C-alpha cells in the first residue's frame, strides 16, 4: 500500500515536473572549424542571412547555416568583442585598440581594407581595458563601452593617450599602481565611458560611470541599455538605461569629465556626493541567485517565432548556463523592472556571451571565458512551438504588483507568492551582502477575469529595495507548471514618484559597523613546509569572518572552517620555507549548494580571482581543488578571500612542491 502511494506520488510529481525546458526550447551545438579557439566576441547576421562571428584570437568567420560552410573573412584583430554588419561585404568590429570597418572591396569574400573608424580613446595596456560593442542607433551611430583597468595589474611602460591619476606621474604609477588606484581605475581618456561614434568616426564621450559594460544594445523604442558587472561601487550586477551625460555610478571615469577637478581622488570623496548624482540601474541582478556576470542584452525581435516573449529584452550570464528575461515597467516617468531566468541548462553552455537572432527567429548564442568562469562554442536555440507557463509582465501598483502569465492560473492563494526584499550598499568596496533582508507578507490577492493576471498587495512597499518573489506550486489551468519560479523586481520608485533611499549609501567618514563575524578574527599560527608534500589544517590558519566548525563529518584534524557572509572574509595560512619554487596548493573542501568561488592570493599577488569551488554534492563529501603558485623563501601568506559571495567549508591545504 505504501509503495502504491509512493508510485502515485512519483507519477504526480512527474506530471507536474514533466515539462522541462527542452519541451519548449531545443539547444543545438554548431560544429566550428578544427583549430579554432571558439571563444566568441561578437555575433551578427548579414542581410543575406549568413552569420558573422568574431573570435578571441582575432579571426572573423562567416557561416552559412544551409551549406554548413565556414569561411574566413578577416584575421589579426586584437580581442574583438562585438560585430555589426553594414552590408553583406562590410562588417564593423570593436577590438581593443579601435572601432574598425572590415571591407571586402574586391568581392573575393575576404576583407582587404581594415579601416579605422575611431581610435580616439586611451589605452594603458592593462588587461582589463576591454572594449565592448558596438551597437548601432537608428541613425547609424555606433556606441561602444570602454572597460576600466583593474588593480590586478599595472599599466604598460608605453600607453596611448594622456595619463591622468590624481597627481601621480605615469612613471610612479607604473612602478606602484597599488598606491591609491582603488580596485578599478581610469588612467587614460574615457575608460569607464560609453562612447558615441558616427559612421565617419567623429567620437564623443556619451556617458560616464561604468565599470565593465559588457552588454550594449538598443531596444525597439530606441533606448540604449548596458549591463555592468558586480564589483567595487556595484553591490550587484546591473542593467542601465543609458542616458547621455548621466553618471552611472562608478566614479573612476569622472576624472574625464570637464567639471572634475584635476588631481581630485574619487576614493576620498564622500559617497553621498556620488549617490546624489548617480542614475540608478533599472534592473539589479542579484549576485549568486540571478547572475554574477551579465553579458549582452538583445531584444527578442523574432515577432513571436521565438515563443511568447517577443519584444522583451534578453540578457546572458557568464557563470552559469542561463539566459534571462527582463520585464520593464514604466513608473512615474522612469523605467525600472524585473529580471528572471528564462532558459536554464537544457544543453546550454556556460559563458553565454553574445547573441544574434537569425531571420527565421532562432537565437544563436556564442560563449567565451577568457580564463574566467565561462565556456566556449556556438549554439542555436529554437522554440518548439509549445507555449511554456511563464510570467510575461510584472508591474508595480500602488499597493504591490500585478503579475501576468502566458496561460490562465489554475487557482492561487497567498502561499503561492513568497516575497522578500533586500538592498545592496552603494560603496567603494567590492560587492555587497544582501542587507535589510526581510520577508514581506501578501495581504490581498485578486485574479483577473481571464485568469492570466493576478494583483498582489503587500504589507510594505519602499523604494531602494529589490523585491524578490519565489513562486510556489504555480500551475496553469492546463496543468503545466510555471517554468521558472524566481523573479526579482528593482523598486527604485513608487507609483507616486517617491524614490528616496538614503539607506543605500555608506559614508566614508562613518566608522564601519562591526561585522557580525567580528569575534571571528584569529591570527594564523605560522607553520613550516619541510618536505615536498605537507598538509596544513584550516583550523591553524588565520581567519576573519569564517568560524571553526565540526558539525559535518569527514574532516581531518580538529574541524573545518565555515565561511559566513558574502564579502571581505578571508582564511590565510602563514607557511615558512627555506626553498622557493612552484607548488601545487590543494584545498580540501565541501560544498552542498552551487559554486562558491574564492579569490586566491599568495603573498598579496592574485593567483586566481575566482578559484572555482564547485559543489561536492553534500557538506560531508570532501573534494580537493588545486591551484599552482610560486612560493618564496621565508614566510608566505596563502590567502582565500570571499569577494561578494560566501565560500565553501575548507578542511585543509596540501602543499606539494612541483618538480
Amino acid at each position: 500500500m505504501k509503495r502504491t502511494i509512493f508510485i502515485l506520488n512519483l507519477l504526480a510529481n512527474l506530471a507536474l515536473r514533466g515539462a522541462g525546458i527542452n519541451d519548449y526550447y531545443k539547444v543545438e551545438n554548431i560544429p566550428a572549424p578544427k583549430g579554432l579557439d571558439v571563444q566568441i566576441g561578437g555575433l551578427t547576421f548579414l542581410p543575406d542571412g549568413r552569420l558573422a562571428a568574431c573570435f578571441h584570437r582575432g579571426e572573423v568567420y562567416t557561416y552559412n547555416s544551409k551549406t554548413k560552410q565556414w569561411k574566413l573573412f578577416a584575421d589579426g584583430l586584437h580581442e574583438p568583442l562585438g560585430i555589426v554588419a553594414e552590408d553583406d561585404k562590410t562588417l564593423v568590429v570593436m577590438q581593443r585598440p579601435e572601432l574598425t570597418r572590415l571591407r571586402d572591396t574586391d568581392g573575393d569574400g575576404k576583407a582587404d581594407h581594415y579601416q579605422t573608424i575611431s581610435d580616439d580613446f586611451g589605452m594603458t595596456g592593462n588587461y582589463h581595458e576591454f572594449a565592448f560593442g558596438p551597437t548601432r542607433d537608428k541613425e547609424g551611430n555606433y556606441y561602444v563601452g570602454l572597460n576600466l583597468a583593474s588593480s590586478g595589474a599595472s599599466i604598460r611602460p608605453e600607453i596611448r593617450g594622456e595619463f591622468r591619476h590624481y597627481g601621480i606621474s605615469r612613471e610612479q604609477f607604473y612602478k606602484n599602481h597599488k598606491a591609491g588606484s582603488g580596485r578599478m581605475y581610469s588612467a587614460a581618456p574615457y575608460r569607464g565611458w560609453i562612447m558615441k561614434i558616427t559612421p565617419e568616426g567623429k567620437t564623443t564621450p556619451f556617458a560616464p560611470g561604468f565599470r565593465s559594460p559588457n552588454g550594449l544594445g538598443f531596444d525597439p523604442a530606441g533606448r540604449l541599455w548596458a549591463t555592468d558587472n558586480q564589483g567595487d561601487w556595484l553591490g550587484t550586477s546591473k542593467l542601465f538605461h543609458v542616458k547621455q551625460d548621466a553618471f552611472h555610478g562608478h566614479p573612476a571615469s569622472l576624472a574625464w569629465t570637464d567639471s572634475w577637478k584635476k588631481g581630485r581622488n574619487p576614493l576620498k570623496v564622500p559617497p553621498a556626493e556620488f549617490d546624489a548624482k548617480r542614475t540608478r540601474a533599472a534592473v539589479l541582478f542579484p549576485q549568486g541567485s540571478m547572475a554574477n556576470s551579465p553579458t549582452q542584452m538583445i531584444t527578442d525581435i523574432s515577432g513571436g517565432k521565438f515563443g511568447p516573449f517577443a519584444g522583451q529584452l534578453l540578457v546572458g550570464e557568464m557563470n552559469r548556463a542561463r539566459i534571462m528575461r527582463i520585464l520593464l515597467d514604466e513608473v512615474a516617468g522612469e523605467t525600472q523592472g524585473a529580471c528572471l531566468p528564462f532558459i536554464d541548462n537544457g544543453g546550454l553552455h556556460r559563458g553565454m556571451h553574445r547573441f544574434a537572432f537569425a531571420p527565421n527567429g532562432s537565437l544563436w548564442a556564442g560563449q567565451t571565458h577568457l580564463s574566467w568562469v565561462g565556456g566556449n562554442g556556438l549554439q542555436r536555440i529554437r522554440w518548439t512551438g509549445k507555449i511554456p507557463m511563464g510570467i510575461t509582465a510584472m508591474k508595480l501598483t500602488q499597493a504591490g504588483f500585478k503579475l501576468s502569465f502566458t496561460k490562465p492560473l489554475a487557482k492561487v492563494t497567498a502561499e503561492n507568492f513568497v516575497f522578500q526584499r533586500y538592498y545592496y550598499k552603494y560603496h567603494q568596496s567590492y560587492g555587497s551582502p544582501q542587507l535589510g533582508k526581510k520577508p514581506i507578507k501578501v495581504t490581498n490577492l485578486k485574479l483577473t477575469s481571464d485568469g492570466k493576471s493576478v494583483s498582489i498587495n503587500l504589507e510594505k512597499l519602499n523604494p531602494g529595495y529589490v523585491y524578490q518573489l519565489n513562486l510556489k506550486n504555480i500551475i496553469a489551468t492546463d496543468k503545466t507548471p510555471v517554468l521558472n519560479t524566481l523573479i526579482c523586481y528593482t523598486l527604485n520608485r513608487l507609483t507616486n514618484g517617491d524614490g528616496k533611499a538614503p539607506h543605500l549609501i555608506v559614508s566614508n567618514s562613518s566608522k564601519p559597523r562591526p561585522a557580525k563575524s567580528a569575534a571571528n578574527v584569529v591570527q594564523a599560527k605560522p607553520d613550516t613546509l619541510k618536505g615536498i608534500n605537507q598538509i596544513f589544517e584550516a583550523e591553524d590558519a588565520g581567519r576573519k569572518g569564517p568560524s571553526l566548525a565540526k558539525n559535518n563529518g569527514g574532516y581531518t584534524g580538529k574541524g573545518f572552517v565555515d565561511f559566513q557572509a558574502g564579502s571581505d572574509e578571508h582564511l590565510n595560512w602563514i607557511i615558512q620555507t627555506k626553498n622557493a619554487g612552484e607548488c601545487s596548493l590543494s584545498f580540501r573542501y565541501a560544498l552542498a549548494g552551487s559554486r562558491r568561488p574564492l579569490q586566491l592570493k599568495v603573498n598579496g599577488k592574485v593567483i586566481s580571482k575566482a578559484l572555482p569551488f564547485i559543489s561536492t554534492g553534500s557538506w560531508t563529501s570532501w573534494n580537493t581543488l588545486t591551484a599552482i603558485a610560486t612560493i618564496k623563501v621565508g614566510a608566505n601568506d596563502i590567502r582565500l578571500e570571499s569577494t561578494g559571495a560566501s565560500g565553501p567549508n575548507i578542511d585543509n591545504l596540501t602543499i606539494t612542491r612541483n618538480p
Partner: protein
Amino acid sequence: MIRVLPLAFVAFTLTAAPLKIAIGTLPGLQYDKPRFAVDSGQEVVLTFNNGDEMAHNLAIVAPGKRLEIVQSALTLPPDSNYIPKNNAVLWHTPVLKPDESADLKFTAPKEKGIYPYVCTFPGHGLIMYGAMYVGIKMPMLAQDQNVSPMARAQNADKKLHTWPHRRPLMYRIFMPDASPAAIAVALPHGVSYCWDAGTCHLRYAWIGGFVDPMPVWKANGNGLAKIIGTKFWAGTKSFPLHKLNPFDLRPRFQGYRKINGHPEFHYTIADIDVYERIASLPSGMGLTRHFRIPDVNCPLRITIGPGNTKVSKGQINHGVATLTTNEAKSFTITHHHAHEK
C-alpha cells in the same frame, strides 16, 4: 656459386652500410626532422635537402654548444658559410640555396650524448635546430627540451588557427617595446616586424620565427607576445617623420589595406595621407619600407634609427634623411641586417 654471391653481398652490407638520415625543411625555420638517434661509432650519411624559400645550412655541434656557435656565426661574412672556426663544429654543410642538397658522411662520436644540429645562418639558429641522440634513449617528443619549441608544440598538437603555418601573417596584439596598439607582422623570408598603430611608425624588426602569442591569448590579455628570433633593427620611440613646415602634428592611424596579404598602413598628419608598405629582402637579411605621400606639400626630414639603413632618395646627414617635396612623394627606406651589404 650462384647462391653464394647474394650471401656475400648481404654480409658486406650488414657490416659496412652506413645509416641513412634524410632531413628536409618545413616553413617557418624548421627542419622536418626534429631529432634522430644513432649508435656510438656508427657510420652515418646525412642528406640535407633545403626545400625552403630561403638559404640554410646544417651543422652538427658538440653537446651544449649550439647557442655559442649561433652567436659567433652572427658576425661572420656570407662567404664563410656562417661556420665559425671552432672545434665545437663537428660537421657541416655549406649554405644551401632553395632546392639544393648536400650529404654529410661521418662516424658518430664514441662519446654518448645529445649533439645539436643547427642552421647557423644569422638569426635562424635560435629556432631552427634539432638533436642527434648518440647512444641515449630519447624522451617523449612533447617533453624533449633538446628540440625546437615549435617541434615540441607541433607534437603537442597546438595549432593556433584553422590554417597551417603561413606568411605573411599579422596580429594586432600586445608587444614588448611598443604602445598597447601594436601590430606584429610576419613576412616571407623569415623577417618580422612590429608596427605601432598608437604612434604610427615601425618600431623594430627581427629575423627568425614570428611571435608566440600565447602569453596574451591563453587568458584575458595580461601578457605580451614573445618575439621568436633576433632583432636586427630598432627605430626611435617617437614618430620619425617631420614636416619642416608648417609644424608637426600627431599622426592619426586610418587603418590598412592588404595587398597580397601584406598590409599597407595608412595614417594622416594634418590632412596629408601617408602610406607605408613593408617588404622583406629575398635574402631574409632586412626589409624595405615603401612610402607614398602623394599630396605632400613640403620637404621632409626623417629620423633614421641606428644601423645599416639606405634611403632611395635624398640625403642622410647625422642620422637624419632630408627629402625635397618632390622626393617625398614616393621613396623607400631599407634596413639591412648589420652583416648584409
